[in-house]
């Protein structure tokens, strides 16, 4: 799972000379390492049409002979790289100059892709397509965890949301294909409704200067990006299937694409189902889930200046919540906390999903067009609509369990006009955006809603300028957002009446970044950003019992806008051909940080007494260090070491902040075989074996009175992974076998709310097969 090298193939077609006769053509070329510029040996090349195969020699050269006139697909593969297919229309002897972005000593998460790397000081980290498909059984947040500095806030294994540098939910923007995900992000038990398998790339921007995107972000951004359709006139695709032992999960993912002359298209569909998960000692009753997702991508170019693309996706999920974690008052909570095995634990496994559960549907439609004014200037126009339908079911009396206890429908419309100009040294990006969000409680729940109905209109504009000068890159950006909200709340006192609020917010964001490249192997980046985030609807108006945490939560209509300053300093260095590392320090100060503060009041209701939490503001700081390094012992053996340290403090009250990830350390040892293994005339390529370990520290920065129970102990998890590629006649297989929590360790994680009731997951063996055609 750590061979996250980005394959970057740039190829140049150089027709040398033309011969009129058929079947005498030659196809040759050289493969270079884009990182070092040196020839790459042992690159496997195969023409899928003839099955002819060859390997590059020590100078990186290869040759195919006696080829006929026609269309060919050339598959390149090399250990540690994602295999790459290139289309060649052969009508003469042809020489290809190919580069693979592959260096054993490079850190996989450092994306250095020519132009884009030098055009921004954004701190970007990427998960590649291969890592996404290799980990098809994981959800989006769990995939992101492989990036240092990213954690997940969970409610059991099925429900999780990403935490980047300690921020999540309302404070973290998630972009699905460039569109800010619109849903009920405020809920700690609401996962982002995105299928990671549609994406060819997932990026995390840790910096502050991502000002071109909408969202109340104070820094980090998660981007899920489907790749453009490959310019290839034939039908190609991928079929992936996975099985995992814990929860007996199964999943199927199909992707097909074709660059047809009329319109280029790509479809992607995913089906997943899993049952009750298991800790080392017992089943977690009602923790099954199922998912059905589909996405369609269309692209059409009218001429060199004008192109259109359309993206439509639908995400549908049903998620069970651990039955024994559904508690209704503090007495219940105390009982549940004192148990070794949760209430309702069953002896047997089941796929059944009953209440408590969540049913979520999310649909997205995006239309984008690009218009080139001239070679260096262009305009992007984007229109997008989203529909998010969330239903949560609780155990209820009188046969009402099938009636949702929470039913929220959110629609949003987004329009954007963006202008970009790229000169040799200067780059300008500017735009204007409009966003409309309409949030409604669907009537019929028989429960007063936790968050009110509202309508939000938002207009934003931004300007980003960057300049390259010798070894320096400098960028500056400014953003302004105007937000108008109309909120219709329902009074908590009798007689019930509708109380309306109209809010206006002005948010300003700005950033300043500087990168200095000492040499090809050393770079320093500094980035400072200022951001504002207006209080979210739930922070202002939520009112009532939060069943999941058995507490009464109350919003405060007088909350002010949060203001934050974040600074990042990053140093990347390749000390030698064998050792490279990167270290990123960040410090963020947030004034008027909004958080849930426990009150002295205990409120008496007919269901017993409940603690009261109110949204309040304080001044807070979050700081930390992300460290990653790679040490290569030999050509085929290397280790990755990662460490992330983070701390959050409430400065006004001299208290630690809650829900800050515990520090953690991870390491792996990877062995890659750069020669192929012959079995029955079939060649196993890219054989790789990995052992990995993770040590999560105890969250020491928390006072006992800040939690219901003592924080979980530190824990260590071990895992292993075996993967290999196999080229068959028409298709290419990739096989992955993985074991997580190899020693079946019993543990609980601080950021998993299920820790109050049950242990975390035990051993899980998974097998994935991917067929590319």
């Amino acid at each position: 799972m750590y061979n996250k090298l980005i394959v970057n193939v740039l190829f140049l077609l150089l027709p040398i000379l033309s011969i009129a006769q058929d079947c005498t053509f030659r196809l040759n070329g050289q493969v270079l390492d884009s990182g070092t510029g040196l020839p790459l040996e042992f690159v496997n090349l195969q023409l899928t049409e003839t099955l002819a195969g060859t390997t590059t020699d020590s100078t990186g050269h290869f040759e195919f002979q006696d080829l006929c006139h026609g269309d060919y697909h050339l598959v390149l593969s090399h250990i540690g790289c994602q295999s790459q297919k290139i289309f060649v229309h052969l009508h003469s002897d042809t020489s290809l100059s190919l580069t693979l972005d592959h260096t054993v000593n490079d850190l996989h998460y450092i994306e250095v892709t020519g132009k884009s790397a030098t055009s921004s000081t954004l701190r970007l980290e990427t998960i590649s397509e291969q890592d996404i498909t290799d980990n098809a059984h994981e959800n989006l947040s769990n995939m992101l965890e492989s990036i240092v500095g990213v954690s997940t806030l969970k409610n059991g294994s099925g429900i999780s949301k990403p935490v980047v540098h300690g921020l999540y939910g309302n404070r973290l923007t998630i972009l699905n294909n460039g569109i800010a995900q619109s849903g009920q992000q405020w809920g700690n038990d609401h996962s982002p409704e995105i299928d990671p398998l549609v994406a060819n790339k997932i990026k995390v921007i840790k910096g502050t200067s991502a000002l071109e995107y909408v969202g109340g972000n104070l820094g980090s951004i998660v981007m899920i990006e489907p790749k453009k359709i490959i310019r290839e006139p034939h039908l190609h695709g991928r079929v992936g299937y996975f099985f995992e032992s814990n929860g007996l999960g199964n999943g199927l993912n199909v992707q097909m694409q074709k660059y047809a002359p009329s319109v280029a298209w790509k479809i992607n569909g995913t089906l997943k189902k899993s049952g009750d998960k298991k800790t080392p000692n017992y089943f977690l009753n009602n923790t099954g889930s199922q998912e059905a997702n589909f996405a369609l991508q269309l692209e059409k170019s009218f001429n060199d200046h004008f192109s259109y693309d359309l993206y439509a996706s639908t995400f549908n999920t049903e998620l069970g919540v651990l039955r024994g974690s559904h508690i209704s008052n503090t007495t219940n909570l105390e009982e549940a906390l004192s148990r070794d095995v949760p209430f309702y634990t069953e002896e047997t496994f089941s796929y059944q999903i009953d209440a408590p559960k969540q049913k979520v549907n999310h649909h997205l439609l995006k239309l984008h067009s690009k218009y080139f004014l001239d070679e260096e200037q262009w305009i992007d126009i984007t229109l997008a609509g989203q529909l998010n339908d969330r239903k949560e079911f609780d155990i209820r009396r009188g046969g009402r369990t099938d009636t949702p206890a929470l039913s929220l429908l959110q629609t949003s419309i987004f329009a954007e006009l963006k202008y970009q100009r790229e000169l040799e040294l200067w780059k300008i990006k500017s735009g204007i955006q409009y966003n409309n969000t309409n949030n409604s409680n669907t009537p019929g729940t028989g429960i007063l809603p936790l968050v009110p109905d509202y309508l939000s209109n938002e207009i934003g504009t931004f300007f980003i300028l960057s300049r390259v000068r010798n070894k320096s890159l400098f960028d500056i950006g400014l953003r302004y957002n105007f937000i108008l909200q109309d909120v219709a709340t329902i009074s908590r006192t009798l007689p019930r009446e509708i109380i309306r609020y109209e809010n206006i917010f002005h948010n300003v964001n700005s950033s300043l970044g500087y990168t200095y490249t000492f040499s090809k192997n050393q770079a320093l980046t500094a980035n400072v950003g200022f951001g504002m985030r207006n209080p979210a609807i739930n922070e202002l108006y939520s009112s009532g019992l939060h069943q999941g945490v058995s507490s009464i939560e109350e919003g405060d209509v007088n909350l002010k806008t949060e203001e934050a300053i974040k600074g990042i300093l990053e140093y990347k260095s390749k000390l030698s051909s064998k050792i490279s590392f990167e270290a990123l320090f960040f410090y963020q100060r947030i004034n008027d940080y909004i958080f849930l503060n426990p009150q002295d009041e205990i409120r008496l209701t007919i269901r017993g007494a409940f603690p009261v939490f109110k949204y309040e503001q304080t001044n807070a700081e979050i700081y930390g260090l992300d460290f990653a390094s790679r040490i290569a012992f030999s050509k085929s053996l290397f280790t990755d070491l990662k460490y992330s340290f983070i701390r959050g403090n409430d400065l006004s009250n001299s208290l630690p902040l809650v829900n800050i990830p515990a520090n953690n350390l991870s390491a792996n040892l990877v062995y890659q075989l750069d020669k192929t293994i012959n079995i029955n005339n079939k060649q196993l390529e890219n054989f790789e074996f990995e052992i990995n370990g993770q040590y999560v520290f105890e969250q020491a920065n928390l006072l006992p009175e800040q939690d219901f129970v003592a924080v979980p102990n530190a824990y260590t998890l071990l895992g292993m992974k075996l993967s290999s590629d196999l080229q068959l006649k028409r298709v290419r297989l990739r096989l992955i076998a993985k074991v997580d929590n190899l020693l079946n360790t019993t543990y609980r994680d601080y950021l998993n709310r299920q820790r109050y009731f049950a242990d975390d997951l035990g051993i899980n063996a998974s097998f994935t097969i991917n067929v590319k055609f």
Partner: protein
Amino acid sequence: MNLKSLIAVLIIVILSLNSCKKDDPIIEEPVELITTLTYTLTSSDGGSVVVLSFQDLDGDGGNAPVITDGVLNANTTYTGVLMLSNEQASPAEDITEEISEEDEEHQFFFQSTVAGLNISYTDQDSDGNPLGLTTALTTTDAGSGTINIVLRHEPAKSADGVSGGDITNAGGETDIEVTFNVDVQ
């Protein structure tokens, strides 16, 4: 379609959506709400009736609930009858009925800190397990303390001690948990 017409379409789309007023939401009738619990104790000699009650008309939040405590006679046996209702609905909704219809899914638990005060089940659900809508309360010596009444939804009725009225292994969701102060004289 050229750039100008595209921008025109964009502007039209935005203008057509520029409503700034959210429609009035429908005010949900809280269907599962229990506002009132009364525990009516009638002495076996028919001499006295004591009513313990908990009433929270506006539900969670808002005004604090009104609790009526009681005085019991020493060395007396009482017949206890629980009544639950939602007085926010008009006319008031009888929740007791709903509980007896789903009797296998519910059980009341009674605990008292008064020495010698004992409450036992006198009813059963359709599976022959205790329910607790009717009870027998006996007092011995004088004293004072509390009576705690809990209604659990989907408890594990077969778990150890649960049929004897011990809540420890019951689990389930708490639908009601109220405490009354009582004096035994």
